[in-house]
């Protein structure tokens, strides 16, 4: 049932490190997952857990000191499998995939559009980069795209500069920019974090619509559990550069098996919480990535840690694709 043709992306034992002047930070430390076509994978975790670095590793948009040191990232394009981690960072093969096959949306729409070019120019530039098309025709496509995303009078607004757009409109423009070449995979790195709550819902709704229309696969990076529950088909929970729990939404949110996932879910405020009741927090703080604890990296903060947690936990397959990186996941976790 897991036939290769269904897959769009396979990440295997990805390790990405940052070489700072004095130390090496293992930002992503052996991440593996598979993605099927047309599905949405939600990647959740605290700040600094490596979710963004994982996404940036896929398209090789890491900062200069960031490096993929091991593992493979296989992208299944219509012309066969491509090993992305082996491509040159800014080589023509990688660039042919960026924007055309894999689109990206970033966290801060205010900062991710270039202030000195018009919205239309920036969207059209993605088309002219990948297709032999006249500038006028590219502009027309950009107008269509913006109209589809609900920007009124798109044909005139296209001549506007980013500062003339509101935050929500800028993020729509970013979606238009990322989707205009009809990519097979869209990586959305916290696309709604910088937006108002009402705008957040609109943007997510639009992303769903686009996915329906084009059958795009989406990797949605967020720290918002509500968004994941709403948007994702599968969930990867990350902690300290590793996926600690992976499964479908039903599996992970319905019966979370990793103590970290549980703790995350318990720390989400819900409507109707008793007055005066304190929200659960995860005790301690994330360890320094250049000085990781021995064994399970969550053990020092875990309420269920045992002696066994001093040794590195193995991935346990719970069936149906649900896997958990914890010694105690088979039971015995009661709060």
């Amino acid at each position, binding site marked *: 049932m897991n036939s290769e043709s269904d897959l769009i992306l396979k990440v295997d034992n990805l390790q990405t490190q940052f070489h700072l002047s004095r130390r090496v930070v293992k930002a992503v430390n052996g991440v593996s997952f598979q993605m099927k076509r047309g599905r949405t994978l939600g990647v959740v975790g605290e700040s600094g857990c490596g979710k963004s670095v994982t996404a940036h590793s896929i398209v090789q948009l890491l900062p200069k000191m960031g490096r993929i040191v091991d593992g493979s990232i296989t992208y299944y394009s219509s012309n066969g499998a491509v090993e992305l981690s082996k491509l040159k960072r800014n080589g023509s093969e990688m660039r042919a995939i960026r*924007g*055309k096959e894999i689109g990206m949306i970033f966290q801060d729409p205010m*900062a991710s559009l270039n202030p000195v070019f018009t919205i239309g120019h920036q969207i059209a530039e993605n088309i002219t980069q990948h297709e032999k098309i006249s500038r006028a025709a590219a502009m027309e496509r950009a107008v269509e795209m913006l109209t589809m995303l609900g920007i009124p009078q798109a044909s005139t607004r296209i001549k506007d500069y980013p500062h003339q757009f509101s935050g929500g409109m800028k993020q729509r423009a970013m979606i238009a920019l990322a989707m205009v070449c009809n990519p097979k995979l869209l990586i959305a790195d916290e696309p709604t974090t910088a937006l108002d709550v009402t705008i957040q819902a609109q943007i997510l709704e639009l992303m769903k619509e686009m996915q329906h229309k084009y059958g795009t696969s989406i990797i949605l990076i967020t720290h918002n559990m509500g968004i994941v529950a709403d948007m994702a088909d599968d969930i990867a929970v990350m902690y300290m550069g590793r996926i600690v729990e992976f499964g479908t939404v039903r599996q992970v949110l319905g019966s979370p098996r990793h103590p970290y996932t549980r703790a995350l879910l318990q720390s989400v405020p819900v409507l109707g919480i008793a007055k005066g009741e304190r929200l659960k927090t995860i005790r301690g703080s994330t360890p320094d990535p250049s000085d990781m604890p021995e064994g399970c990296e969550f053990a020092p903060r875990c309420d269920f840690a045992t002696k066994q947690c001093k040794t590195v936990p193995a991935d346990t397959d719970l069936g149906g694709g649900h896997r958990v990186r914890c010694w105690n996941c088979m039971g015995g976790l009661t709060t």
Partner: protein
Amino acid sequence: MLKYFTFRFLSIIPMLFVVTIIIFIGLQLTPGDPLTYLIPPELLASANFDLASYKKAMGLDAPLYVQFFRWFSGMLQGKLGYSLVDGTSIATMLGHRLPATLELAAAALIISSVLGIVLGLISSVRQNSAADYGNTVIGIIGISIPEFFLGIIAIQIFSIKLGWLPVGGRLDYGESGFLSLLKHVAMPALVLGFSLTAALMRYTRGTMLDVLGKDYVKTARSKGLPEWKVIVKHAFRNALMPVILLLCFRLPMLIGGTVIIESVFGWPGMGGMLLNAVSAKDYPVVMIATMLTAFMVLLASFLVDLLTALLDPRVRFD
């Protein structure tokens, strides 16, 4: 926007008026007057010397504000006046000297902006490389060494030891032509523009590094654009604004620097003329020369506004 800039340009005139008043008052506050320079002290001390008639003849007896308005109205009619010292027409003096100064300043400006920006770009793209460190060293030298000293060293090395370039002057005697001019202007222009080159280089590097870390550069890369396009079109276009502003603000310093460089290299420009005029209390010449400098400063700040509006779509004057 046209309306704004017309208004902005015309506002240079009243500002210039205020500047001339300040220069005029400043000149009056300095001790001595042209007569002490013109007339031998023995003659001044002699009993039957009629100072008043001299003053009257030169118009120095009138109240200060009358002197000022006499001069100012004359200037508005295009009468720049005459040197008090030797009676030459200031217009003729300018005709000879202004082109030389502008030539030197323009050469320095072109050399330093091209060199400074290109080196700064290289430094930012190849951050912490050997080229970057080399540029940093040059930059620190350029910012810290005074230009007159640099000029003397340059003459010592390139003219006296190596004999590659002439010691000074604008053209060899009896010679003309572009090549001779180039040979003469090269060293003073490089020396004059050296600190500006260094400043531009450091500034370009800094703003480029800042811009290269921006999200929109990542967006540009995420479209699959080639790296040169990311750097030149998306990053440099944004780094250019502050760099051009710095360039415009440094323009008056460049003009001011010519005063010193011209005397080091014996360049027959406004600098030498101004130096002589100040020591001789030659009011009309000093007034015109400083006013020209003030005009250039005001023009530079006008250019800053104009270029900001042209380069940055966020700035619009309506």
